[in-house]
């Protein structure tokens, strides 16, 4: 005690200071405890990435591999967005993998074998996917056949159609540059840039960070205005800094390679659209309402069937987009495309915190889930781990994530 006073700090001051750090720490602990499931995925992602980085001798965090990871993850991310909505509604879509595969095959046939214009080909296939969505949505809403059964049947049918459509030609090589660019190309840089760094990428990253910080501060202010609970200032700032750093580092990795892949832009646009729809529009509210309590939703004047129909249509159309991206990345349409895509999408969504009981879920978090799953795939490929082990590892990570989620929600 005497020493504290001799250091020019009264006991009270010291206690106050200790109290403050202790308080912040305690808040952090309770924050982590109460939001365990949503922090779990970030934690898992960091651990997975670090393990692969060390294990592969530094090959994971290279500019080339990060670019590669983004391109690999893009089609799963698109599927995961659609799947999240389906899962919030307490349905499932097992067929989306083969809808993606079939879409890739049909678009390749149209472009390469029949000489249809690339944009028209894609439009035709998107309409085909919409029809598939209608068909499955119809069975679920009007006939009351569980989505599991409807889409399991769809899985058989679309797999058969996929194999059939490529039966004569075998794998079709895609030569159209515009189409290939979708998952192999990059956004252009400003002309005349001779530095190693892709300047447009860094500018976009800075804009993204600025926008993120601004939105977060605005939403926090708004919450404070209405006395809603918010995290304390120190934790809030720490969160902002962490996320900004991640965005900037990722952008830097891309910038010293070839810049932002076009696939990332496509995912970004779809993600922004769906995130906005879910959080800010009537349709989004209705989706959460139906997932939370479909009977209450119905009695509140929500058209449950229409919204469910929308979810299945959106899923199939997104599956077609995912099919394009996959075909674009491989520069070819193959009969094996689509195998187990739905598994990755479902796993992404659940790892991203979509509740197993429905009613809760965010598309942005589903993307984090996609990164968890695809980092595993990417890292294990880097280490040349046999595919059989890859499935086992993914399965284990998936079940741990869901078990954790179920446990933390029960409290």
């Amino acid at each position, binding site marked *: 005690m005497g020493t504290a006073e001799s250091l020019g700090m009264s006991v009270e001051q010291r206690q106050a200071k200790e109290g403050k750090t202790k308080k912040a720490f305690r808040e952090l602990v309770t924050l982590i405890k109460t939001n365990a499931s949503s922090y779990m995925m970030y934690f898992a992602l960091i651990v997975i990435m670090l393990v692969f980085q060390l294990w592969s001798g530094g090959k994971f965090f290279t500019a080339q591999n990060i670019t590669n990871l983004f391109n690999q993850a893009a089609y799963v991310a698109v599927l995961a967005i659609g799947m999240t909505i389906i899962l919030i509604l307490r349905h499932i879509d097992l067929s989306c993998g083969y809808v993606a595969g079939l879409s890739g095959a049909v678009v390749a046939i149209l472009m390469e074998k029949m000489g249809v214009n690339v944009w028209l080909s894609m439009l035709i296939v998107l309409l085909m996917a919409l029809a598939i969505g209608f068909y499955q949505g119809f069975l679920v809403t009007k006939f009351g056949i569980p989505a599991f059964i409807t889409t399991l049947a769809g899985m058989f049918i679309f797999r058969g159609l996929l194999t059939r459509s490529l039966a004569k030609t075998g794998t079709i090589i895609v030569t159209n540059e515009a189409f290939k660019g979708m998952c192999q190309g990059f956004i252009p840089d400003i002309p005349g840039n001779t530095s190693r760094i892709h300047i447009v990428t860094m500018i976009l990253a800075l804009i993204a960070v600025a926008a993120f910080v601004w939105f977060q501060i605005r939403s926090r202010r708004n919450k404070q205005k209405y006395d809603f609970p918010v995290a304390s200032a120190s934790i809030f700032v720490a969160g902002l800094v962490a996320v900004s750093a991640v965005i900037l580092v990722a952008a830097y990795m891309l910038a010293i390679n070839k810049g932002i892949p076009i696939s990332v832009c496509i995912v970004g646009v779809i993600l922004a659209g769906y995130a906005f729809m879910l959080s800010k529009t009537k349709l989004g*509210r209705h989706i*959460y309402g139906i997932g939370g309590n479909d009977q209450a939703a119905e*009695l*509140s004047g929500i058209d449950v069937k229409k919204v469910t129909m929308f979810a299945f249509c959106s899923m199939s159309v997104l599956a077609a987009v995912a099919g394009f991206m996959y075909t674009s990345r491989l520069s070819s349409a193959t009969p094996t495309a689509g195998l187990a895509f739905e598994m990755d999408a479902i796993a992404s969504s659940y790892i991203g915190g979509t509740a197993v009981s429905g009613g809760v879920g965010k598309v942005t978090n589903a993307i984090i889930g996609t990164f968890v799953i695809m980092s595993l795939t990417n890292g294990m490929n880097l280490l040349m781990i046999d595919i059989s082990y890859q499935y086992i590892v993914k399965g284990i990570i998936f079940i741990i994530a869901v078990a954790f989620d179920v446990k933390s929600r029960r409290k």
Partner: protein
Amino acid sequence: MSDEYILEMRNICKEFPGVKALDNVNFKVRRGEIHCLVGENGAGKSTLMKVLSGVWKYGTYTGDIVYNGEVQQFKSIADSEAKGIAIIYQELALFPELSVYENIFMGHEIMKGKQIDWNETIIASQRYLKKVRLDVNPAWAVKRLNTGKQQLVEIAKALSKNCKLLIFDEPTSSLNEDDSENLLNIMRELRDQGITCIMISHKLREVTAIADTITVLRDGSTICSLDAKTDDISEANIIKNMVGRTIDDIYPKRLEKNIGNVMFEVRNLSAEDRATGRQILKDVSFNVRAGEIVGLQGLMGAGRTECALAVFGNPYKYKITSGDVWMDGERVSFKTPKQAIKKGLAYVSEDRKGNGLVLIQDVKYNTTISNLEELIKRVSIDENKEIGVANEYKKEIKIKTPTVAQKVGNLSGGNQQKVQIAKWLFSHPKVLILDEPTRGIDVGAKYEIYSIMNDLVKQGMSIIMISSELPEVLGMSDRLYVMSEGKITGQLDIEDATEEKVMKMAINA
């Protein structure tokens, strides 16, 4: 401890994050008595019973449970059951597809070697069914029985476990008058056979009729224990202890009535249940005027809720065989609840958890869900306006919640009910159907809901109140209809209505 008391709970404290649910509760139950536990919602009755039955296991609370003279440390429901303590919950825990005898012996099957002895099971189940005076074939699937009979099966199940202390949590809340009366008689018989009963109930009339002792809890503390023989157990006295004040007038009076033209009218409505073909509504006609509260009284299963739902866009797709609906002088036919809401009809569900609210969402979400159009600015929802609206209703109808960002599932029953009302007020209805608006909520919240109703009709709204509670219907309505077996069996002006008259109409068909 003397043998007089079968159970003594001493200085029980139980805390939840942020709330002291039980604060030094002392609770003594005499052997072979019927002991009623009353208190407002949130007073701690259910928590106390959960502590007793081991749902909140030993170590999560402080204080002692002395049962049969021994201090008990229950770690699970199985532990308390092994000592002869059983709870009959409000929501029954039976397997609807299984037979009565399978249900009775579920979990403690009668074995012959390694196999279940079904013959002995059936014989034994008949013995227990007799004890609860339930005359049904034990081979019937439980879903064939009505709620009242299912409850008796639950009791038979408890008896088959050789239970000595039987706890009833709101046993009559979903029963009609007949079944309630029957249940109370069976409780008396059980008492005479030496089984001690604890009953949690909001229905004070039943409490005063049956109790040997009444313990009142308020805000997690024991307020008093009243002996039926020596103390004043009038409803007024119990209510005074429950709320800590005397409610002279349970039903707030409307000073001026301003009743206008017929706002809403149903003519000759008949409907069938598609699945079973059973006729659920027979030629039902009624109307309500602007500024009027019309009661729709009847026993459970009389078809009141079905009637409301049939006109409210028919979400459960009953087959409407005849009849039409008029609103504000215009003939309407609502195909979905959405259409009904648009035209100014609103339905506050009797089952707020089941189909009234989205419990995992917050207060503001639930308040605005049925009228999001009003909040749309260009394409998106104006969240500031949403919060503003929710806060307005929070203030106006006194929803007790820290903020409107609180999950509805965390609120008490009365406040959940207010959120439901807020939701429907925000859809700006002309006609509001309230289905059992005060079921399972405490006296204070009831009074507030009655006051809200009075305010609404003062503003010219029409209210149809469906209720099983006679005093409530008589206390609040301007006019009332009585339903029985899908038919309107009578219409009474409030001046002519007496409990006897209404009851007669409700029973006879």
